[in-house]
């Protein structure tokens, strides 16, 4: 047995020796270039998608090797920062922030990392959200929009005939639901660290609150609009019309899980929620989706979120980056990307046309004109977002204090 292992080893050694002798001959003119990729894991399908894509890319582009890292959302920001700080800059990253890196001069402008044709196909509204100081530094890869999801069975059973359109109707509906089904939480309110900033932006947006004023270049968070919003939500929490611990509840393992079990009647969801429900035990829930309830006298909004592909200058791989990104945006490859990511809004006009007729994604594309976006073009946004998320933990106990703290920390990040 041992002998056989040894002989196997020596065979392997001979083969590898042969290979190392043979290699310089076959690629005598050009050294292999390695592209380092750090990509967000939208779903578990991303890794197989990239593996297949890279095999085909390497076959078509001799001399370019691709080193792939697919990273979960909670870790990716930190991973990229660590790589940059330790001098191992990646070449391509796909995640949700770019302005801080653009401000530091780490990124190629968008027109260097994709061809003019690819760039022209990207939806203009998304391109506007990819600019820092007027220059595009990132290429939008996809987007999402939110909607207000409700459990049709519970609403009907409680005598709520149409989904609530205003805060007043929302509270009335919640009281009816609570009276009829005592063990159901009428509203799921996930202010926890996963997506606290989304809840804050959506509910505040429905009262006219906007996070950032582009004219004064200041965050506008400690405002009347947001204080009214948090006070309204606190009212719901105090009347036990939400789950008991909003400050600690995360979106996926908290609010959505309860919604999938029929324990929460209404929740902030997105274009990707139906897909998630079908895979996480919520396939029997009869859900409906509508516009977010807004404050009386205000208008409804939705939250648009877009993510980016970015090319990093540190290793000087401009040409290879462009080849790879153009390859992803080949319509068939891009369709595969969207499919693997699981039900998002396409960033290209060509794919967007096809998606308009999709029964689930189509309605969201129509919602986009009403969308407000995070101030992702501001360099300090990622730090400010993190602080909103942290402070949401106690926002339902003391709204004013939370807002004051957020404003203070975001201002400090904005100044430094």
């Amino acid at each position, binding site marked *: 047995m041992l002998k056989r292992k040894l002989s196997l080893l020596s065979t392997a050694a001979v083969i590898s020796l042969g290979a190392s002798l043979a290699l310089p001959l076959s690629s005598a003119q050009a050294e292999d270039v390695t592209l380092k990729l750090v990509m967000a894991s939208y779903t578990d399908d991303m890794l197989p998608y990239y593996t297949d894509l890279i095999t085909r890319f390497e076959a078509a582009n001799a001399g370019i090797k691709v080193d792939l890292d697919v990273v979960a959302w909670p870790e990716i920001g930190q991973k990229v920062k660590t790589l940059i700080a330790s001098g191992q800059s990646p070449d391509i990253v796909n995640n949700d922030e770019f302005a801080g890196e653009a401000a530091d001069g780490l990124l190629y402008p968008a027109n260097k990392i994709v061809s003019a044709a690819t760039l022209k196909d990207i939806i203009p509204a998304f391109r506007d959200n990819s600019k820092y100081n007027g220059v595009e530094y990132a290429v939008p890869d996809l987007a999402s929009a939110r909607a207000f999801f409700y459990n049709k069975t519970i609403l009907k059973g409680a005598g709520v005939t149409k989904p609530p359109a205003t805060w007043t109707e929302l509270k009335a509906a919640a009281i009816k639901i609570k009276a009829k089904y005592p063990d159901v939480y009428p509203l799921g309110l996930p202010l926890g660290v996963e997506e606290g900033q989304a809840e804050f932006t959506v509910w505040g947006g429905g009262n006219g609150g906007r996070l950032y004023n582009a004219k004064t270049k200041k965050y506008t968070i400690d405002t009347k609009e947001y204080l009214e919003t948090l006070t309204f939500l606190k009212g719901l929490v105090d009347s036990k019309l939400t789950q008991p*611990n909003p400050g600690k509840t995360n979106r996926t393992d908290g609010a959505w899980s309860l919604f999938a079990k029929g324990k929460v009647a209404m929740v902030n969801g997105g274009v990707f929620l139906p897909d998630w429900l079908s895979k996480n035990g919520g396939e029997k829930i009869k859900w409906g989706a509508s516009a977010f309830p807004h404050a009386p006298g205000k208008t409804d909004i939705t939250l648009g979120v877009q993510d980016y592909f970015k090319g990093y200058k540190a290793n000087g791989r401009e040409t290879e980056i462009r080849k790879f990104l153009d390859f992803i945006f080949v319509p068939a490859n891009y369709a595969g990307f969207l499919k693997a990511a699981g039900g998002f809004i396409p960033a290209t006009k060509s794919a967007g046309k096809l998606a308009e007729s999709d029964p689930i994604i189509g309605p969201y594309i129509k919602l986009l004109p009403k969308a407000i976006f995070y101030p992702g073009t501001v360099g300090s946004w990622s730090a400010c977002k993190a602080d909103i998320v942290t402070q949401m933990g106690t926002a339902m106990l003391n709204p004013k204090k939370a807002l004051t703290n957020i404003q203070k920390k975001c201002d400090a990040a904005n100044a430094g």
Partner: protein
Amino acid sequence: MSTKTFKKGSSFRSLPWIGPALLLIFIFVLWPVVELFLVSFREISVSGLIKGWAGTENYKALLDNSDLSGTLRRTAIWLVVVVTLTMALSLPLAQLMNANFRGRRFLRYSVIVPWAASLVITATSWKWILDPYFGIVTRIIVDLRIAEEPVDLLGDPRTSFIVLLAVGITVSLPFTSYVLLAGLQAIPKEIMEASLVDGASAWKGYWAITFPLLRPAFLVAAVINSVYVFNSFPIIWVMTKGGPAYETDTTTTFAYKVAFRDQDIGQSASLAVGNFFVILIFIMLFLKLSKWKELDQR
């Protein structure tokens, strides 16, 4: 004469033997500390780029941080309460483990098992025990009609820190009680017996004889415990992530949050420098105590 030359050359001659160890200490112990100090005086951008020297800006930003004072207060409470109660509970526990009775082996095992488990596993178990929807504690509270609705002890800032303190004490007990048990076993039985013959009550004998003899073990356990508890990251991080908001942060978790949520590496490093000095004080205290213990035993 000859002994003198031998002594002189010996430090150089021993270099090949201690050299590798010195090198390792320099690379893995001293250099990171130097690096930490450097970072605390550097300006580092949100994307992790070193932009230059910041002077004392990071320290100023830290002192200006509105959540620092609460964190310092909680760290002090965390340290004092966990260490004091751990020591107070460990004394009788060690005494019990030292007593001769049926099931003593079982008791000793049951105390050592939580210590053998990783802190992350212990903390995760507690997190699930206290879960508002699926946890056993919630179930008991609701079934006994203490509360109508599920309660989230970790999600409410009025209760979360108290729960963490309790778990902190639970995980510190095994180490402490075993150190004390070792101390107890080193005390000759005859002394205690002699005191009983002389008519001292068990209680008086304990305070007049056992406890003074146990003092060296007690002090060492207290100092080592303080270092562990002060540095404790996994319990708080796994159970609450220092939340809700900053309501259960101690300096270690706060430093992590400043670095990776607020994305201010420099400010976080300046806090870590402070932590470093606190630990240094504990270590010096420990060295002093262990030397004092050596003298005591001579």
